[in-house]
């Protein structure tokens, strides 16, 4: 899977989780840029990404990822 393909799939997960098809996340996107992406929704998002890509995030990644780019790095390293 290329990085672009991963990003496209991640965007689909964002649409599903936040019920908003207008969301477009890019590598630099952070939680501050997406309305409703707070600590309460973060774990739901993580769970859905795990389901979509078929792997488990480590706790240090769940806590430590700073933006979507870092999320893509972790996904790419695990699929």
């Amino acid at each position, binding site marked *: 899977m290329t990085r672009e393909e991963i990003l496209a799939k991640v965007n689909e997960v964002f649409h599903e989780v936040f019920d908003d098809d207008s969301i477009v996340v890019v590598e630099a996107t952070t939680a501050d840029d997406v309305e409703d992406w707070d*600590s*309460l*929704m973060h*774990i*739901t998002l993580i769970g859905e990404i795990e389901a979509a890509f078929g792997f488990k995030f480590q*706790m*240090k990644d*769940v*806590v430590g990822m700073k933006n979507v780019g870092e999320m893509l790095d972790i996904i790419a390293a695990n699929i």
Partner: protein
Amino acid sequence: MLFHLGVGEHFFVGIWYNGYEVCAKESAGFMGFLIKEFAYFFIATFLLYYLVPKKIQWVVLLVANTYFYYASGWKSFVFLTGTILVSYGLGLLIEKTKKKSLVMWGSILIFVAMLCAMRVLPAARSIMPLGLSFYSLQCIGYMIEVYRGSTEAEKNPLKYYVYISYFPHVLQGPFADYNELKKKIFAPHAFDYDKAVYGCYRFVWGFMKKQVIAERIGNIVNPIFATGEGYYGATVFYAMVLYCIQLYADFSGYMDMAVGVSYGLGIELQENFNVPYRSKSMAEFWRRWHMSLGLWFKNYVFYPMLRTKLCTSIRAKMKAKKNKYAMNVLPTTIGLFVNWTLIGLWHGFDANYLCYDWACGLIIILSEFAKPLYDKVNKAAPKFMQSKFMDAVRVVRTFILVGFTFLLFRPDTLAVSKTLFVNMFTKPGIKQLLEYGYWNLYDEFLIFLPIVLLCIVDSLKYKGVNVYEKVHKWPFVIRWLIYISALIMVYVSKFELAKGIFAYYVF
């Protein structure tokens, strides 16, 4: 930190110490490390820090931390050193062993048992060291990070000692992540005039908040919170509002001083407050208030709780039933309940602390449950709901809700809280408020301008303005007029006020 302000001429006030954490609320047992002594301590540390070769600056901190904490009493010092050595050893063990999970849980259990024993056993209470609740969480956080593999166990026990016992944060935080703080503490620091000046500003501003606002508000509200008897309606509401300001000025004032002192040494600490009373919801309030505590519990309790089998299986079941609402809300409720219960127990084993933290958690949980309703209303009248007026309503509503929760936090017992709540809604108390306000006119007059100043500074901060930078660029004469005004305000305060302790010092 407890700044003893009765000493007088010394503006660059000092650090508290001595006495035992459990006694702090009664302020019994405090001996106090005088302002003058802290000034000597800090100036000596400051000079040595910048005079020695940069490679060994951390050794100066090691000596300073040791002296600072030792001054609080040898028992506390021995306890701190023992705690640090145990967590240092456990960190190494977690890294080396194959049974990481077992050792990590065992380590957490040891620390939790120690905290519980210190709070419950009368014999232990007499040796309870200052800041135990804070540095214990730092130790636990460090061990979890080692377990997760996000940090390597520190091999040098002295460097680990410096991290935990770093004097600006050892007593009340802010909590600092080991990876973050070690980069700053062990990095070489050349003297930076701008940083030193900024540190001074922060320290003086924090001191003003503590001494001029928080202490004097204490004069006004303490009689009302003592028993709650005989005060009604508007008077209780007035005390509640003032206490919101007092606690904020007190706790954030301490943080300003801690951050300022650390800045003087070139070491940036994490901010702990970000204009909390501009929050539009309780959840937002807790992202702006005591931020490092919230972050600690989020990273080590809330997120792991939501990743447990219980929560993931609930989420999976609700997803299978295509119930998206329950899929989010149910695990979140469980996570928030556990999170707030533990924060309550961390605050203390008193019923009022637990009720206070449950109340905070409950408000956040209820607003999660009500989210679909909010969304419907937002969609029905988007312009109105997004108007500045509605934002202001949300800010006021959140402030009042926070105030109600503080009515559980501030009194010594739940019975007093109950009396205050009942009295608030049984009689209007307007005439009583006018009389009470009249008798406290002098204190009210003296806090009025500082509170207005605090509001202005916070408003500017909320808009992203760096107030300190602005002030620094002002003409010399104006800046010195401000310093002299600050000096006068502090001086006026010091004559009458009791020696204050910081409200969060009891934890």
